[in-house]
């Protein structure tokens, strides 16, 4: 028990200390977080009318980010899986960083849920016992798997850090089953999120069985992109060294997941447009516009160019093996997928509406600020978690205080 309180105290005092760069970064994030709190207040006094959502297009930027970030959370498995199933040396050293990323992503997802709800004050209605918990509803399953994933990652991640901190051995009987469960669980969170929208015949654009695998491939491309970026920043700014072999394995995963994702996009376009039924109207709106409404068209083509370009760059050994150039395709793929799977997937599902109404969606400043604020909050948490994890992995925080760490 005393060890535990010392762990908490050491952890907190370590992550709070930092250089000017650290404080400046955190202050910028904090400014955005304050902005987010203000618009959240607005949303819960004026109502969702301050957003661009309507009764026609009632899921917007928040839902798009929610879907995307569930993918990022699931993407952490691209580290855990090679580390524990293939015993990849380089990956094994950084597994815990992936778990920290998953934790921050799930926290962001939860915050987007709060932003999305019309009555966040009533979310307790969803809790078992005090409320009503419906497993008929896909959303009920989504909450279950997301909370489970958060818990699994928090337990695995912090247990591992705890053993490093105290210098004990990892209890494999307890630890390994949890790791294997978390690997399968990572797939489940994104599968269920795909089911959330693909089980609605009312929305033909989403109503196909390709959705889960498409979600997973894009997730396993976008997640590792963010992880590589984080690894490169860590390598250059901290004492921790992430091995090239780990990064190279991640680029391989990204390349082929991105390739499959593009292939699936191509399949969808051919299938929908060959027959060109009214069910293809959503996709048509996205790609070419409908009834003169073309707001998402440049975004779609932009995303496609980014993804194809990133795929081509990842295929070039001179780019993917060059740690200076590698961030370029990573950023491209990340942004491309964010557009394609976020706004590019969620919004056209509502256009046209089930009765044929064609309207457009314009996110308002409130929504943009809220989104930025939640991302900032996520990065705030991620920075703290990564800093603490790196401190422990490097042995800078150790049981026995500063004296033990100095040795």
């Amino acid at each position, binding site marked *: 028990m005393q060890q535990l309180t010392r762990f908490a105290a050491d952890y907190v005092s370590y992550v709070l200390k930092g250089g000017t760069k650290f404080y400046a970064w955190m202050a910028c994030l904090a400014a955005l977080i304050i902005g987010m709190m203000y618009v959240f207040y607005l949303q819960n006094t004026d109502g969702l009318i301050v957003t661009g959502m309507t*009764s026609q297009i009632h899921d917007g930027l928040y839902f798009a980010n929610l879907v995307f970030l569930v993918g990022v959370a699931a993407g952490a498995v691209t580290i855990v899986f090679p580390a524990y199933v293939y015993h990849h040396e380089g990956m094994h050293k950084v597994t815990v960083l992936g778990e920290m990323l998953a934790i921050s992503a799930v926290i962001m997802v939860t915050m987007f849920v709060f932003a999305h709800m019309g009555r966040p004050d009533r979310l307790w209605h969803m809790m078992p016992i005090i409320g009503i918990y419906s497993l008929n509803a896909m959303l009920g399953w989504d909450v279950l798997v997301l909370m489970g994933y958060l818990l699994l990652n928090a337990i695995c991640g912090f247990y591992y850090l705890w053993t490093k901190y105290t210098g004990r051995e990892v209890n494999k009987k307890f630890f390994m089953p949890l790791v294997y469960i978390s690997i399968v669980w990572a797939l489940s969170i994104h599968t269920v999120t795909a089911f959330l929208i693909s089980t609605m015949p009312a929305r033909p654009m989403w109503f196909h069985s390709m959705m889960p695998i498409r979600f997973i491939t894009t997730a396993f491309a976008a997640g590792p992109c963010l992880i590589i970026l984080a690894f490169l920043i860590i390598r250059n700014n901290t004492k921790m060294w992430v091995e090239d072999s780990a990064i190279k394995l991640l680029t391989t995963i990204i390349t082929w997941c991105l390739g499959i994702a593009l292939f699936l996009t191509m399949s969808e376009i051919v299938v929908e447009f060959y027959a*060109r039924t009214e069910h293809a109207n959503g996709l048509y709106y996205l790609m070419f516009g409908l009834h003169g409404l073309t707001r998402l068209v440049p975004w779609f083509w932009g995303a496609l160019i980014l993804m194809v370009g990133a795929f081509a760059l990842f295929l070039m050994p001179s780019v993917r093996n060059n740690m200076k150039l590698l961030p370029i395709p990573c950023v491209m793929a990340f942004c491309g997928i964010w557009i394609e799977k976020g706004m590019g997937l969620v919004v056209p599902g509502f256009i046209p509406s089930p*009765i044929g109404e064609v309207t457009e969606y314009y996110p308002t400043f409130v929504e943009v600020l809220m989104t930025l604020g939640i991302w900032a909050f996520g990065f705030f948490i991620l920075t703290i978690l990564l800093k603490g994890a790196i401190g422990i992995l490097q042995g800078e925080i150790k049981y026995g205080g500063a004296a033990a760490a100095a040795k």
Partner: protein
Amino acid sequence: MNANETPPANPAKEPSSECLAPPASADPAAYPAASAPTTSRRSFLKAGGMLSLSSLMGAGALMTQSGEAHAAAEWAEHFQKNYRLMTAEEKDEARKRLERRYSREYEKPVTVDITGPQPGVLMGYALNVRKCIGCRRCVKACVAENNQSRGERPGERIEWIQVLRMERGEFSQDKMDHGYPEGLGIQVGGNAYTPAGQVLEGQYHYAPEAVPEKDATYMPIACMQCEKPPCVKVCPVRTTYREADGPVVIDYNWCIGCRMCMGACPYWARRINLTTPVLPKAEMNPVTHYLGNRPRMRGVVEKCHWCLQRTRQGRYPACVEVCPVGARKFGNLLDPNSEVSLILARKNVFRLKAELNTFPKFFYFYD
């Protein structure tokens, strides 16, 4: 459309000519007077009231407008159970609490009915698409009856019934060069329909000088009260459910505003209250039902419930009563002699999007 058109005024004159069906009990005399006083002074005061209310909203969370009783009622409402799980006493308590609060807020005696489904009743609806003239009186009567929000901003204007205006397509010699489909596809010559059923938002709010228009047909839709409602299945808190006598209802106090039901509905029957509904005191209909037309709050979903406050008391829904051509029929599907049952037995009937297996209890027919 124009706010000063006072929708319920028309039906009061007309049912004798066209709507032969409504019995004497279906009489709108109880409240149409509410729409009469439309003095500019009142609307000015109203506008001022709204303005000060919205500016107070921010600071006013702690300064409860009408004292502690109000706060206590809000508190109790916030922590009450799902309506279906309430005991009879709890339901009655909730009813009294709401009646007190609404009566104070709207400055007139408001009743909140909690009558449950009656045995031997399964409500059904039938609409004669050939008769509909697209006058949209049903839309306005519905808004007046069911206390929908009627503000100025787009998100504040809620209508449960949509009358779709479909353009008639035509084949003609001069269109031979402009094939259909437009843009993509094989040019087959001739020009039939502009993609039917797919129109811009503005076309739902068509304002012709006279209806019916020569080049249009009309297709009114609202909640289909499905027997297998997809909206009910996706609700994570089971706040929306099918009542034993047919209608799919919402416990507004339990809804979390996640809008999954809106995504699942193939008929676009559901609306979200993006902000606190704009419901002027004078226009508020004080005859309400707990699961029906009682005033809603910000952030919850609402929809047609076949006027539970009327139909559970043996009256017709407002849209049936107001229809000047008698296109709308309502009745008990379990009674073989009801109008709806007779229509099902004798007419050509169809359901919208029947392929989705939602089994609507809203039927379309033509003579």
